């Protein structure tokens, strides 16, 4: 019994750390982008203030039970994803829960939040919400394909479906990172990351300010603050997952911060350099080159590692 309590306490600690780091990371990135554009930019803690302000608004309009549950599902999806990804390898506190085959669960948890939002936004009754959700799910289905192929390639390579064991297999040194042992899978997954982080050219689902459309059109006050919090948790979870699968994991928090920041800079740099795709262009993009790279990764992995 006390064992479970301790484990639960550790889970709370790691979710809190990931949430704070995720929120802070969004501020750091916004500040970096502002500097690129020759601006001073928002304070790095601006997102904390936004979340607090939205959470303490005096009124909130609801459209029914699913409208409440949408953001809740979303946060549950974010936390659920995080709980099965080891933040730090070989750490009692940040190890989180892991079991054989947890990567399948993680992939499903990633879809969970998007589906919850779809139900919530549909209850909002706003036509643009429905359009936004439709775009979001279509793009989600497209960028999951290369990511799924990359995961299959890793499963063949390491002969396991456990994130923890994949991280463990990369601990011998930099040359053992999946980045170097299976570059094709890494490239396919990184291209998929461009879509899942939602920066340009794949940001038509939830454009930052200028188009009043997207799944969150109708959400306000506490609902939007929950979604902002989840955005931070989910971003942190995704970055940690990529770090674990492809970049050798981390054994201390400083290493985690540096590696996840470096991974996050990839979609940021791409986003700062390219204009926006329409949704049909985005889907075609993912189903062409990244999918082919993913298929090649599976074939090569089968040839090399499945002897």
């Amino acid at each position, binding site marked *: 019994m006390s064992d479970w309590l301790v484990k639960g306490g550790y889970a709370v600690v790691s979710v809190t750390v990931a949430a704070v780091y995720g929120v802070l990371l969004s501020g750091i990135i916004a500040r970096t982008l*502002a500097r690129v*554009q*020759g*601006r*001073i*930019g*928002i*304070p790095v803690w*601006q997102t904390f*203030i*936004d979340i*607090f*302000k*939205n959470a*303490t*608004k*005096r*009124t*909130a*309009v*609801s459209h029914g039970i699913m409208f409440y549950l949408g953001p809740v599902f979303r946060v549950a999806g974010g936390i659920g994803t995080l709980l099965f990804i080891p933040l730090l390898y070989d750490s009692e506190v940040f190890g989180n829960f892991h079991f054989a085959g947890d990567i399948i669960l993680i992939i499903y948890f990633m879809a969970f939040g998007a589906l919850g939002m779809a139900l919530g936004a549909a209850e909002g009754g706003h036509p643009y919400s429905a359009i936004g959700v439709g775009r979001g799910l279509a793009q989600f289905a497209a960028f999951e394909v290369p990511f799924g192929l990359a995961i299959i390639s890793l499963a063949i390579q390491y002969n396991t479906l456990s994130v923890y064991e994949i991280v463990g297999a990369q601990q011998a040194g930099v040359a053992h990172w999946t980045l170097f042992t299976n570059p094709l899978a890494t490239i396919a997954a990184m291209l998929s990351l461009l879509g899942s982080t939602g920066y340009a050219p794949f940001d038509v689902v939830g*454009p930052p*300010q*200028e*188009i*009043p*459309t*997207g799944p*969150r*059109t*109708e*959400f*306000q*006050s506490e609902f*939007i603050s929950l979604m902002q919090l989840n955005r931070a948790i989910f971003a942190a979870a995704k970055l940690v997952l990529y770090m674990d699968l492809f970049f050798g994991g981390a054994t201390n928090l400083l290493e985690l911060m540096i590696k996840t920041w470096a991974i996050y800079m990839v979609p940021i740099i791409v986003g700062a350099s390219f204009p926006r795709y329409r949704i049909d262009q985005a889907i075609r993009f993912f189903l062409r080159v990244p999918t082919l790279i993913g298929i090649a990764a599976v074939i090569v992995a089968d040839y090399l590692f499945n002897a």
Partner: protein
Amino acid sequence: MRGPKSKNVQELANDGLTYPDTEFFCKTRPMPVEGQFKAMEQVRNWARANSLHVQAFGTGCGAVELRPLMTARYDAYRYGVMGSPTPRQSCVFVIGGYASVKTLKRIVVSYEQMQNPKFVVALGSCTVNGGMYWDSYNTINRIDHYIPVDLYVSGCMPRPEALLAGFVKLKEMIKEGKCEGANKYLENFDWYKANQKKIIKNWNMPDYNW
């Protein structure tokens, strides 16, 4: 809706709606909501002052002065001023210059969809007394008669610097707890509604846009 304990104290008439539409809109009368716990309210006001999400709705020609604020030259982001795509998620409504009769309807809808607390910055001389359009047949002269205004930035047009100074002043006022326009609107709801209905002839929307 959260906040007021007694729902349905007095129902709105919603006279402007015809049959199928009447089923889609709420008849509950909106109630003012006071901030609870003074010390906590000061913290909340600080957060509100530092996170101003401006509704990106150009209501008049003055809205052209809003765009440069977000560029490298003026960079309003550093003061915590950001654009927001929908009225639901925004808390500052900038009335960009003159408001025509047609725009007033949209202004009212957008303003009512924003959540309490909300702040209104009226930009340009036209919002004060009609400015150069004071005798126009389709321009309203005082925006203050239709929605409560927290802050005026006068000029024709005011430069972005003036608007930025206005935002800084608005932040000070929010921190002092002086910006209670949303509650003022609901306390004097009938007076504001009567004024609006005098101007908007084809009132085909609910009395309060939740």
